[in-house]
């Protein structure tokens, strides 16, 4: 037992062949581990990170639909633009394209043609057709989208 402790004391002051190799190998393992984990982490993160490519296909920048879809006035037509639901409504000859995702906690708002408001069923936020908050807990107005009428088609976005 005494010999062993003596050996250990010696090795801490004056490095011997065995502990030199041990330490070198350990440092090598640590360096290899760091490089490998950086490489694997980069590969894995890159693989799961959502991009246009991983979601499959390029999103449409704009969308067009026939005018007859939103007639008569006051009727809502729901479309998807860049993966988000949009309501297209015609009131007083003006076409409104407005996001249907409530700015409070992301529920889908519903169109109430008798009151001319968009109402959120989750927490009772209400918005007008320009997106402005009329009541409820919603912190921000609903985003609106530009619309253009070309012949008998509406272009949104």
């Amino acid at each position, binding site marked *: 037992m005494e010999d062993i402790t003596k050996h250990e004391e010696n090795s801490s002051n004056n490095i011997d062949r065995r502990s030199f190799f041990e330490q070198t190998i350990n440092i090598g393992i640590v360096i290899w581990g760091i490089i490998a984990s950086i490489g694997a982490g980069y*590969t*894995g993160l*890159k*693989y*799961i990170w959502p991009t246009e*490519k*991983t979601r499959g296909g390029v999103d449409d920048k704009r969308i067009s639909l026939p005018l007859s879809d939103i007639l008569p006035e006051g009727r809502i037509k729901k479309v998807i633009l860049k993966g988000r639901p949009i309501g297209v409504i015609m009131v007083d000859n003006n076409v409104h394209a407005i996001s249907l995702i409530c700015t409070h906690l992301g529920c889908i708002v519903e169109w109430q043609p008798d009151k001319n408001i968009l109402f959120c069923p989750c927490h009772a936020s209400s918005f007008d057709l320009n997106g402005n908050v009329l009541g409820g807990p919603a912190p921000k107005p609903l985003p609106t989208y530009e619309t253009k009428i070309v012949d008998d088609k509406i272009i949104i976005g």
Partner: protein
Amino acid sequence: MFRQKEINDIAKKTEKKVNLKGILNWLTLATGLFYGELDERLELRDSLKKVLKKPVPGHVNFWFCFGGITFLLFVINATSGVMLLMYYRPTIDHAYESVVHITNNAPFGWLIRGFHHWSANIMMITILIHMVRIYFYGAYKPPRDLNWVVGVILLCLTLTFGFTGYLLPWNQISYWATTVGTEIPGAVPVIGPMLKNLIRGGPDVGQITLTRFFALHVIILPWIMVGLLALHFLILRRLGISESL
């Protein structure tokens, strides 16, 4: 005046020390299990040393490595399999499409799928070499006979892994391989047709078959495998590596 300066110096020094210690303490969250304050309490380093630095008998050579290589390949398969699950869709309408998507669109998807494919294939070879080594060294003899039995069950599980995984891309070769492969248990006397029906989840290879094979491949088999591997290693540790001839 002089005293004040001295005090300031000491204060500065201790402040620096505290900061350094703070950083080190923070690092213990990452490395502390083996070094520093957490290790003082849990003493993991010493127990780990006992496991990792256990001496092996002198006669151990290269051929003794293949069990470990097989385990490494299993771990690679498990991790790459989890990665593939991030995009794979187990429906007959989307399975093939999603596998093509992984291979062609997802960054490094080809690499991860390649890892999964090749380590699965190489695993069969390493298992074979492992078994041949055990056989010719007579390492299957009592008291290690039970571990041989566990090993054979592990081989069967690996084969089932291969069979169920083969269907998941849902292409022509996997569809017909599964048709033929499930037709074989159908030839068993008396219970054959029942068995075939049970494996397929219906009279034909279809959506239910894919769902079943998917469940087997990603949940049921892996956990049975992990449990049996633990038993395999536990018996090995208890009995030690076999003597040389």
